């Protein structure tokens, strides 16, 4: 098992190399000059542009620029074009916010989805099942930005129960969860709804399949209580497809964070990504892309390892 994990981690190196080259190519071959974008368009002179280009290293041949940027990334002295702040600091400041938000959305999505799926599978084709199907299909179909606006309109503007934006009350800092809780409710729901919908669908069908298996009948015949049969026999075996789904969900969660952080004005990595894209801040875009790729690869690896943890029949060599 540890040999398998080691090989998978080593395999990430060429993958990340490929991703960094492609990301780099995409942003470098773009029309438009970041030096010009940063300068004041009214009064920039040719000399100022030239010196800005030199400072940003935009005059070097492309492979040199790439190597310089990657070296900067490894050693942590890669700096933003826009603010000259080290990229690692900019991301480091915002990463806890995005991780906290994604973590909450993950708990909400997985917990809510599995719960809905189980309830549906216990009474298939009933009213309750239909209601669950409705909720999950709604969650699939609704665009996250639209859901966010509607929730803000209802809970923040009309009912005034929850704040419409921000990550913590204005003027506060740090991680006082009690103070922050009202700010976290709506973003968590918006970010987690898609996951909840997929989770509910997959759990329902996996549970229905498991509940019709012989070992469930055996468990019932032994006189086990229904709760034990459902939780210990059927559910554990249904978790398998659900785990792969989580691995695949990492990139989607990352993209959702861009939308949610922008709409709710939350200073996270997603917001930083969007701002940097608009400002042509190449080093930041490249770093965020690579960080996202690492998250995706790690997510896939965790899904494969999680497989073996739930299903003892699966063994990796």
């Amino acid at each position, binding site marked *: 098992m540890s040999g398998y994990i080691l090989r998978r981690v080593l395999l990430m190196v*060429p*993958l*990340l190399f*490929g*991703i960094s080259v*492609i*990301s780099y190519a*995409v*942003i470098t071959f*773009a*029309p*438009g000059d970041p030096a010009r974008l940063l300068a004041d368009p009214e009064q920039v002179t040719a000399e100022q542009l030239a010196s800005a280009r030199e400072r940003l290293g935009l005059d070097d041949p492309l492979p040199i620029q790439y190597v310089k940027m990657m070296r900067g990334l490894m050693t942590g002295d890669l700096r933003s074009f826009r603010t000259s702040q080290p990229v690692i600091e900019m991301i480091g400041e915002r990463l806890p916010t995005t991780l906290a938000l994604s973590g909450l959305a993950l708990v909400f999505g997985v917990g809510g989805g599995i719960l809905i799926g189980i309830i549906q599978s216990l009474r298939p084709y009933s009213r309750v099942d239909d209601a669950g199907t409705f909720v999950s299909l709604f969650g*699939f*179909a609704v*665009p*996250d*930005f*639209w859901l966010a*606006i509607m929730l803000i*309109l209802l809970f923040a*503007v009309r009912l005034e129960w929850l704040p419409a934006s921000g990550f913590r009350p204005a003027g506060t800092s740090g991680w006082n969860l009690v103070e922050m809780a009202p700010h976290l409710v709506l973003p968590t729901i918006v970010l987690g709804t898609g996951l909840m919908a997929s989770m509910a669908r997959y759990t329902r069908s996996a549970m229905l399949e498991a509940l019709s298996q012989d070992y469930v009948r055996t468990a019932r015949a032994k006189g086990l209580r229904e709760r034990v049969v459902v939780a210990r026999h059927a559910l554990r075996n249904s978790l398998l497809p659900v785990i792969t789904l989580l691995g695949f969900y990492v*990139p*989607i969660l*990352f*993209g*959702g964070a*861009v*939308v949610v952080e*922008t709409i709710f004005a939350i200073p996270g990595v997603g917001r930083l*990504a*969007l701002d940097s*894209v*608009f400002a*042509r801040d190449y080093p930041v*875009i490249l770093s*965020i*892309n690579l960080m*996202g*790729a690492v*998250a*995706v*690869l790690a997510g*896939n690896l965790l899904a494969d390892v999680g497989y073996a943890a739930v299903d003892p029949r699966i063994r990796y060599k």
Partner: protein
Amino acid sequence: MWRRFLRNRRALIGGVIVLGLYLVALLAPLLAPHDPNQQILLDRLKGPSAEHLFGTDSLGRDILSRAIYGARVSLAVSLVATLITIVIGALVGLVSGYVGGWLDNLMMRVTDVFLAFPIFILLITVVAIYGSSMFLLILFLGLAAWPSTARLVRAEVLSLAEREFVLAARVGGAHNLRIMLVHLLPNLVPILVVAATLRVGIVILVEAGLSYFGLAVSPPTPTWGNMVADGRIYLDSAW
């Protein structure tokens, strides 16, 4: 197959809705009561009325007409982008799975690279940088998803290639290209249809998300995403 489809009430209802939407998009010039871009500034932000069933927006444009025309963008973008995804995915998967060897290895490693991208961030990057033309948008949305289709097709081809009918074809003297196109491709249609259907829905949502950020089709053209973005400012003040 048609009879089974028509007998399934849910499938029928879904099919009618989808077909209806495409018809609306196709017949937009006939159905829209107003010119979607005509501005009547005196009638800004009006509520629903007999003249404007959905009301008017901040520039006095008829929202129903804009929604009808917006359907064209969403549906056209999603259809063409999905077509690109499916064609590339099927091609890569077919060749990779059937030919095998180093070519398979190479293609699958390239696929892995694309699969590991945080797609939405890549999309906002390319769209923001290369400009928001409809053509590029469709191209990028189409290119974003072929790797998962390729994986799916490859897995299917690997199992199909072991079947007797492929062996029979080879014994009958069919060359590889013929086996791939005539014998294997038709058997891939079911999974391609399923993959395409799911993909169309996802692309509509992603396109709406991009145009919400002003990154998709440029302003005067109505899309569902940019209409929501425009309306957001007036949620509290309109009507």
